[in-house]
């Protein structure tokens, strides 16, 4: 009985081979498949690095990193305004890359956590290097403002230096007048909007001449009408 079954299966398979219904994939098919896998993996890695680089640039250029020096409320604001959607996209790409790498021997022979850590270190490290050394982001930002970038880059860079709305108590402003612990500021988003900023009395910037009219500053605080009670203020070097 077993012999009959064996013959039957063998005959079925050989029959299909001999009737040309079944053929072997040529060697180059496998080379192409491996090459496609390598290319897709590299592409996913590059996109992931690029998005992380953009994320760093976006945090830097929108002055959101300044929140980190503003104490617990600053941290809270940093987390609120952080571009989580980009981080989520990057996390998905890393997961896809992890899955792709598991198709290769080194991908499944090594513990998944180590491969994941390797990808993260590579993405973050390369992202920092691209952001800090290449100047590609500044060039793309300029091109986006001049509508010379193709989608989706134009959309991405168009929002890179966006600020929270005028009512949020966060702004990039120019100092119109400075008097004691009170500053009169003009919002760079709309210079016609002016408001007062009250610094805490113990803030060294309230009594020193650190801040003067004409300086650009990043301000975070609670807006009450035309007055912002700040919990953080930082001079801007390269305002946009």
């Amino acid at each position, binding site marked *: 009985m*077993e012999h009959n*079954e*064996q013959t039957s*299966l*063998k005959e*079925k*398979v*050989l029959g*299909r*081979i*001999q009737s040309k219904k*079944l*053929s*072997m*994939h*040529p*060697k180059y*098919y*496998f080379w192409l498949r491996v090459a496609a896998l390598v290319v897709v993996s590299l592409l996913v890695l590059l996109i992931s690095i690029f998005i992380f680089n953009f994320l760093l640039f976006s945090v830097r250029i929108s002055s959101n990193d300044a929140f980190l020096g503003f104490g617990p409320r600053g941290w809270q604001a940093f987390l609120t305004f952080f571009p989580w959607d980009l981080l989520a996209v990057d996390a998905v790409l890393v*997961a896809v890359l992890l*899955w792709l790498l*598991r198709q290769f*021997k080194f991908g*499944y*022979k*090594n*513990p*998944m*956590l*180590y491969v994941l850590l390797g990808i993260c270190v590579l993405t973050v490290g390369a992202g920092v290097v691209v952001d800090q050394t290449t100047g590609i982001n500044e060039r793309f930002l300029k091109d986006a403002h001049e509508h010379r970038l193709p989608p989706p880059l134009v959309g991405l860079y168009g929002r890179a230096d966006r600020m929270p709305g005028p009512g949020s108590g966060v702004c990039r402003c120019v100092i119109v007048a400075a008097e004691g612990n009170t500053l009169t500021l003009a919002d760079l988003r709309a210079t016609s909007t002016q408001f007062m900023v009250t610094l805490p009395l113990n803030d060294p910037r309230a009594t020193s001449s650190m801040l003067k009219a004409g300086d650009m500053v990043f301000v975070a605080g609670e807006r009450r009408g035309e007055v912002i009670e700040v919990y953080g203020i930082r001079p801007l070097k390269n305002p946009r």
Partner: protein
Amino acid sequence: MYYTKVGSDQLLQPSDEALAKLVQDGDQNYFGILVERYEAKLLRYGRKFLSRTEDIEDIVQEVFINCYQNLQSFDTTQKFSPWIYRIAHNAFVNGLRKQKRSPLVFVDFDTLIAHPAYEDPLPREREAAEIKQMIEKSLESLKPKYREVLVLYFLEELSYKEIADIIKVPTGTVGIRLKRAKEALKQSYEKIQKHHGA
């Protein structure tokens, strides 16, 4: 051509790898010998995953078809058995998933970190008879990931490294999975024994 001694009469037969090379070079009929050599093994392997004989036979046939189609990707300097078991493993796991409609598991926690990968051949020899008996009686109660390592190690007598290549996990994970599988198997076996005793 590579030859291996087969059977008690010690006749020299072409190795699986040599046969695969012949098929790769266009001698399709040699594929029949590979089918003969692996059919019973794969059916036995399939029975540890699935219960319906028709399903298992269909899947084994698909495995051979898949094997033939992809034979040019087989490196004849490597061992053939882990390669074909890998194809079979994927096919049976898919079959099991369809049958049980179990969700796709992306992360298995025992593959996350490194585990020591020392393979001691003595326990296999010592435990083989006892474990084989337990496998026959209580394998079905185990998770598929435990079933496969037990079957591949104790019944198919493959090494940790070969099993790691088949199920695509680090070699250390095979060791830790095998250890847990043996524990689960023993527990399950004891339960069945108690049940029968009662």
